[in-house]
């Protein structure tokens, strides 16, 4: 299973709609980095509205994606994290502290535009 990555100007948009098994998560990591490289993207919004569980493995993959993207010059904003998922992450003691978040895709894009100046 592959997660589709949409291009919008110099941004990439991803809406995770599938169950995140390990393979899918790692494949996504690779696909996203390749896409950032190919397109010279400056910003990425990853929407997690449909994700109903993030365990420590997936949290690590997401954290790594954010760090790797930033090494490549692209800023990542996570959007749509469900309340239950946020609470569970805190219970788990997993912090995505360095990670930028916003309520939904639209606000995520706005956030990128503000930070990157258009």
């Amino acid at each position, binding site marked *: 299973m592959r997660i589709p990555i949409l291009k919008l100007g110099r941004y990439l948009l991803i809406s995770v709609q599938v169950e995140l098994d390990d393979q899918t998560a790692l494949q996504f990591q690779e696909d996203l980095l390749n896409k950032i490289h190919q397109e010279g993207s400056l910003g990425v919004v990853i929407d997690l509205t449909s994700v109903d569980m993030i365990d420590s493995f997936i*949290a690590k993959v997401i954290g790594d994606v954010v760090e790797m993207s930033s090494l490549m010059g692209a800023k990542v904003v996570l959007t749509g994290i469900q309340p239950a998922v946020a609470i569970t992450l805190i219970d788990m003691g997993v912090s995505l502290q360095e990670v930028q978040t916003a309520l939904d895709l639209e606000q995520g894009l706005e956030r990128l535009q503000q930070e990157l100046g258009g």
Partner: protein
Amino acid sequence: MSNHSCIEIANEWGIVSARQAGRELSKEIGFGSVDQARITTAISELARNIYLYTEIGKIDLEEISDNHKNGKVRGIKVVASDKGPGIENLRDVMIDGFTTSGGLGAGLPGVKRLMDEFDIESIPGEGTTITTIKWLR
């Protein structure tokens, strides 16, 4: 109790099956969305540890009930068992950040916080059994 299922964890697909079964059963028992996420996440952590550190193991899910002073209370019992290498130092693995695999080391201490009851039994060379319960409030 008839509401019982057993998922074999022999590869990473077992992890997905186990958490789907956990999500279904916890919904059926009547847990709210936050507790469903907690239970599903705990199951995912336990299943992934079996996948990572042992050859094969299983996750047993069961609806349970107990008589409290305010009447009957329902809950879910999750038992993760394997015949893997076992854990040498049980105290170490319960410390946040302790990992032998480059993970976050959040798994076991996280499961303990997500669930209401947590018990770990491990014999080096023989295997590990972790029993956890979440009560419906």
